[in-house]
């Protein structure tokens, strides 16, 4: 992908943010803004997971660890220290990266199903620590008390509209960065490892180092998504680091399509829309969602966006089918 493509992507990104920023002037009401904020947080998280699953072939079940870590580190830094919001943001990214180096070093030498379970165990371990360390984290009540000092460069993120534009911008910046990562030679190494690890090693790629690097990068983006959520809910809650959060991300990328860069974002929108529509219609959310998943999974057997690209372009989407 050349410079022209990069510029085109950046232009599209700016356009998306501009359009989103304009929408509330025509469509007042908080529901849409809430939806976009949640979507931005979750889509960052899901796309970062797809760096592992779709691009590298690392099926992590515990990626929610870094999402939850993002919410907790950020909220704790804001509450217990006096650092400014941007600094807390950067520190949180660093904390996540450092944690990911340790967790990744332990996990990535395991294969397939074992990798999946150890990552899940790591996440559940973090969840147990948060539940039991009541003094610091508030235990199962979550971290309450709100997030102070939300004004950044004169913009008050406590204001719903500002937070909404901020989240949209975060999503677009995150997606552009990840898009750039998969387009570099490093991204090519990832796909090569996914398709044939032995050959990649023979060609001189340091498989272990590349895997660890992408694990850390994915963790950083996931925690950025977590911070958006932390600002949205004004705190951090154990549900944000519990296993279903990883389940949601897996659901989003499989539904949206692991072979398309925007698949996880589309999947996130489907998931949140389903969530909102179904919970309004029936108390049996699981029943309805389960049936829809079965229809999708058994009918399409691939993500929505992969299905569409295959139909339109005749190009079989890459990925892990």
């Amino acid at each position, binding site marked *: 992908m050349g410079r022209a493509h990069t510029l085109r992507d950046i232009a599209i990104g700016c356009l998306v943010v501009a359009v989103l920023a304009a929408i509330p002037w025509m469509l007042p009401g908080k529901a849409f803004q809430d939806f976009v904020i949640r979507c931005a947080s979750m889509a960052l998280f899901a796309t970062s997971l797809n760096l592992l*699953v779709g691009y590298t072939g690392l*099926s992590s*079940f515990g990626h929610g660890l870094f999402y939850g870590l993002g919410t907790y580190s950020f909220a704790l830094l804001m509450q217990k220290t006096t650092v400014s919001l941007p600094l807390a943001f950067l520190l949180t990214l660093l904390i996540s990266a450092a944690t990911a180096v340790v967790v990744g070093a*332990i996990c990535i*030498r*395991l*294969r*397939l*199903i*074992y990798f*999946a*379970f*150890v990552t899940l*165990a*790591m996440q*559940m*371990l973090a969840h*147990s*620590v948060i*539940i*039991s360390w*009541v003094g610091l984290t508030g*235990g199962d009540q979550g971290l309450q008390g709100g997030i102070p000092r939300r004004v950044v460069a004169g913009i008050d993120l406590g204001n719903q509209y500002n937070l909404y534009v901020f989240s949209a911008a975060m999503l677009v910046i995150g997606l552009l960065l990840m898009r750039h990562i998969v387009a570099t030679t490093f991204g090519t190494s990832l796909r090569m490892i996914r398709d044939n690890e032995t050959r990649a090693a023979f060609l001189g790629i340091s498989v272990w180092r590349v895997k660890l690097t992408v694990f850390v990068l994915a963790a950083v983006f996931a925690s950025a998504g977590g911070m958006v959520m932390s600002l949205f809910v004004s705190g951090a809650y154990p549900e944000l680091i519990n*296993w279903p959060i990883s*389940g949601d991300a*897996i*659901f989003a*990328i*499989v*539904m949206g399509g*692991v072979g398309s860069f925007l698949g996880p974002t589309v999947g996130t929108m489907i998931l949140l829309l389903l969530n909102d529509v179904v919970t309004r219609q029936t108390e*049996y*959310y*699981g*029943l309805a*969602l*389960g*049936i829809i*998943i*079965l229809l999708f*999974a*058994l009918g399409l*057997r691939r993500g929505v966006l992969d299905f569409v690209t295959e139909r339109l372009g005749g190009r079989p989407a890459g990925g*892990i*089918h």
Partner: protein
Amino acid sequence: MDLDALLDCVTTSSCVVTQTVSGLIVGMLLFLVAAGLTLIFGVLKIVNFAHGTFYMLGAYLAYSVFVGTGSYVLGVLAGGAGMAVFGVVFERFLIRRVYGANVLMQLLICYAVVLICDDLVKIVWGPDFRAMGMPPEFQVPPFFIAGGVVPPFYLVLIAVTLLIGGALGLGLGLTRVGKTIRAAAINPDMVSALGINTTLLYSMVFAVGGMLAGLAGGLAAPVRSLTPGMGFSILIESFIVTVIGGMGSIAGALIAAVVLGLIRSFGTIGFPLFTEGLMYIAMIIILVVKPSGLFGKEIV
């Protein structure tokens, strides 16, 4: 953290007995669920994420039959038989379609089944806790062993699960079907080429796995409260058991289940809020030291 309480407990015989027995029943129930899980994985290379649902449905089925007929034995058998049938249906109509597909697709299918069954249970049995209570034949005074209280039902439960585990081990080791199943775990193409109906074999493996989980559910019903989400926690724990024991190894599952049960029962005294954390730590340590689990084969 309460290390003094833990120290007090391990130095008192009554506490040791009580906690060991309660750890053993947790372990034995886990073993039944994990044995099915590991069997299915060993033969079909499928991780059945819906296995906890089998356990839950088995428990509810046993509960209803017990309430209807008054016979606990009948209830447990119904739980086992019902889940054997459910396992076959599940394999035939859902899982068979995603053999060879990505593990995440299999996960998604199972996740859907879990969601559906949890809600169906809510519709049929209501969203609240249900308690079966101790069946009348076991409402007898407890034994006292070295000062520790041991309800007779616990001993029956341990004996029955050991019996089932033994039958499973012998069945797999000595009978013709068992040998075929083991052969299919090693090389399904060869087994199929020898004229054995592997399609039928796979259904059978799911039937056995479902039956074990259903029996576990029925056996657990008197000592556990029944809730629509009860499948999940046992699922996570039985995964830990299969992973620690080595995926595909039934002996490994037994040992890991007992160890985990004991960690649980003694852990609740020393680390009341961190019991689950202990189990995860155990799993991480085992996998880091021996990535294929205690008894797993070195193929990955």
